[in-house]
């Protein structure tokens, strides 16, 4: 087997490292799609590589070789994959598969519970569900249809344009199904630790996406104010007490993004990321063909030995 089998692993690492940075400079919708779907492709490529590497060792097991009619000696002779590398690959595939399945099942349960919650929040049939809670809180509950939940504490704190900004922001999360992008990123990171930065990057991207959508519906300043809890309408900024974001770093990035000119779709950045993924897919194909040839050789050897 040639070096191409290792390429998807290398690419997963490169994607995991560069994609979150590049995504910050792309329009949020494009960034989100690239990170989530791209992450899944990168993870799948790496998983395929590990499987191919591991299989060269698994295939040397007597019962498997018997049923597959290939010669173990020929495999051992022709296969350039070192046994320790193959063994490590097997372990990695098993561990990562368990991780992937565990995370996937947990997410699926949570999304199911969210769907139930969305259809059960009173007043039923209404987009907005108000929570009797003095603390300022706002949530997007994914479902069919999804619901927006805002606490009475928050509603009483916001001006009307800020209320509208928050509603528009959360509506964007629901209508673009941002929870599915998040899930894709979490799954990609579970399937490959090299992609561990993707969930946070997607989280930031979808927030930027919703901010931009809110800024289309409402005015940009209202969004920034609702976001930071710092009102600037009177000239000097003053706190209005609500921060509509989960982390300070993210708030700063989001405010910067809202203040900057709308990010343009940079062809070369997209091409770079897409190019990486295409190379990974081609490399997996190459490696699979190599493996096939290897087993054809081993089967030919088996046939001549048993003639």
């Amino acid at each position, binding site marked *: 087997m040639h070096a191409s089998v290792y390429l998807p692993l290398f690419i997963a690492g490169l994607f995991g490292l560069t994609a979150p940075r590049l995504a910050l400079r792309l329009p949020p919708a494009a960034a989100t799609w690239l990170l989530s779907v791209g992450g899944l492709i990168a993870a799948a490529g790496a998983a395929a590589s590990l499987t191919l590497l591991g299989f060269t060792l698994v295939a040397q097991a007597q019962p498997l070789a018997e049923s597959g009619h290939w010669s173990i000696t020929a495999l051992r002779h022709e296969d350039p994959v070192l046994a320790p590398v193959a063994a490590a690959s097997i372990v990695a595939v098993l561990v990562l598969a368990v991780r992937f399945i565990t995370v996937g099942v947990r997410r699926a349960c949570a999304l199911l519970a969210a769907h139930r*919650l969305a259809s059960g929040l009173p*007043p039923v049939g209404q987009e907005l569900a108000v929570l009797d809670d003095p603390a300022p809180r706002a*949530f997007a509950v994914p479902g069919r249809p999804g619901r927006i939940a805002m606490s009475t504490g928050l509603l009483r704190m916001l001006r009307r344009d800020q209320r509208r900004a928050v509603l528009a922001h959360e509506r964007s*999360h629901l209508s673009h199904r941002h929870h599915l992008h998040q899930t894709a990123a979490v799954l990609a990171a579970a399937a490959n630790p090299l992609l561990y930065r993707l969930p946070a990057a997607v989280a930031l991207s979808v927030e930027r996406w919703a901010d931009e959508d809110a800024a289309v519906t409402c005015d940009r300043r209202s969004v920034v104010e609702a976001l930071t809890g710092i009102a600037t309408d009177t000239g000097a900024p003053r706190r209005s*007490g609500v921060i509509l974001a*989960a982390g300070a770093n993210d*708030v700063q990035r989001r*405010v910067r993004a809202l203040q900057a000119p709308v990010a343009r779709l940079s062809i070369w950045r997209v091409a770079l990321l897409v190019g990486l993924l295409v190379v990974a897919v081609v490399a997996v194909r190459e490696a699979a063909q190599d493996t096939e040839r290897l087993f054809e050789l081993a089967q030919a050897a088996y046939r001549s030995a048993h003639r």
Partner: protein
Amino acid sequence: MQTRRPAGGLESEVLAALWAADRPLTPGEVSDAVGGELAYTTVQTILTRLHRKGAVVREQAGRAHAYRPVIDDAGLAAQRMRAMLDRGGDHAAVLTRFVGTLTPDDEATLAKLLGAPAPAPPGDRPADEVDS
């Protein structure tokens, strides 16, 4: 500022405005609270629809009706939401949340970003709220 709204979005805004107020509102007051560009009849129609669906309660206020949201709904909604959040882990994670905290330093940085001197010193700001 004139804005575009999705279908059904107006009902949310009216409901939000009713909750933001601390007393029942007449259609005229709701119209003001949501944004002056809304026609009185539009607000009236939305309020009637919300009332028919049982999302708001109607009271007589002089010659007009005044509307207030249903408190029980919010209590129940808060309870269900709390139950989901209390399960923690992914159950809490799939609910995208929008309220967090900032340190005074972060706040100063943000104020700088917003192009003005730092906001009120930490002493007299309202207590930050974090989701548990």
